[in-house]
């Protein structure tokens, strides 16, 4: 009983940090201690491992989502040329 309550508390603690753990964004890093605690928890908790896998799959799917078409290469080239011609382009 004591074991399962402790696990539930750790699941709750991990759930609140799992996205920051997976993103590893420089604006909101976890401490090395927090990373070690999450990894230790994921190693033994099937439910939180499943949640982490779903987050990874969701991120992969979103990174390839075709609703955000790639920029037109000719636009990129024109804008590079525009930047290359500064400061002349700035003159009205």
């Amino acid at each position, binding site marked *: 009983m004591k074991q399962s309550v402790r696990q539930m508390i750790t699941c709750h603690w991990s759930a609140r940090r799992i*996205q920051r753990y997976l993103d590893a964004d420089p604006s909101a890093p976890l401490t090395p201690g927090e990373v070690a605690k999450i990894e230790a928890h994921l190693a033994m908790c099937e439910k939180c491992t499943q949640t982490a896998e779903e987050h990874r799959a969701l991120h992969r799917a979103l990174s390839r989502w*075709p609703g*955000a078409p790639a920029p*037109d290469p000719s636009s*990129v080239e024109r804008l590079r040329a525009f930047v*290359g011609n500064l400061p002349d382009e700035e003159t009205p």
Partner: protein
Amino acid sequence: MNEGHNDVESARALVFREQVEPEIEVMLRVAMSLTRNRADAEDLVQESLLRAYRALDRFDGRHPRAWLLTIVRHTNLNMQRRTRPDPVGDWDLVRDSRPAFGASTQPSAEDAHLDGVLSEQLSTALAELDVRFRTAVILVDVHDLSYAEAAAVMGVPVGTVMSRLSRGRDRLRRRLGPQTLTPGRFA
């Protein structure tokens, strides 16, 4: 214009090119989400680049992407005010966006599942999300921006981006479900 002035301007333009050129593609991607139109996106980025060049002396040289995306956001708002009598928020424009299927590169074989059935379900689930949550998800997961860069585009603190991102992702994950997201684990 004397020779000394020309040298200073040339050096300034060189610094600007080095800072900005690597960011042109991401500026265009974000601009396309804002304008939903390739020509308007290019105009928005060009105007933003010009404003950035004029403001270069006030830029501290740190985080050029976040700096440029902030300028894209402000420029977009100004351009909207110029063309619309009742300005709308940047991301109100994203609300009605629908996917342009087939617009991106072909997936690899192992990604066929995710890019087939899932991308359609994902589009539906994204369309159902509150625009604030969808904006955070699109900027970070689709456009691969950092929390700070997304905050610059949205004009909100980093903590707000994190909160909206977390809620948006959790809603998408629950909406799609484990059978769709991780079918291999249920084989």
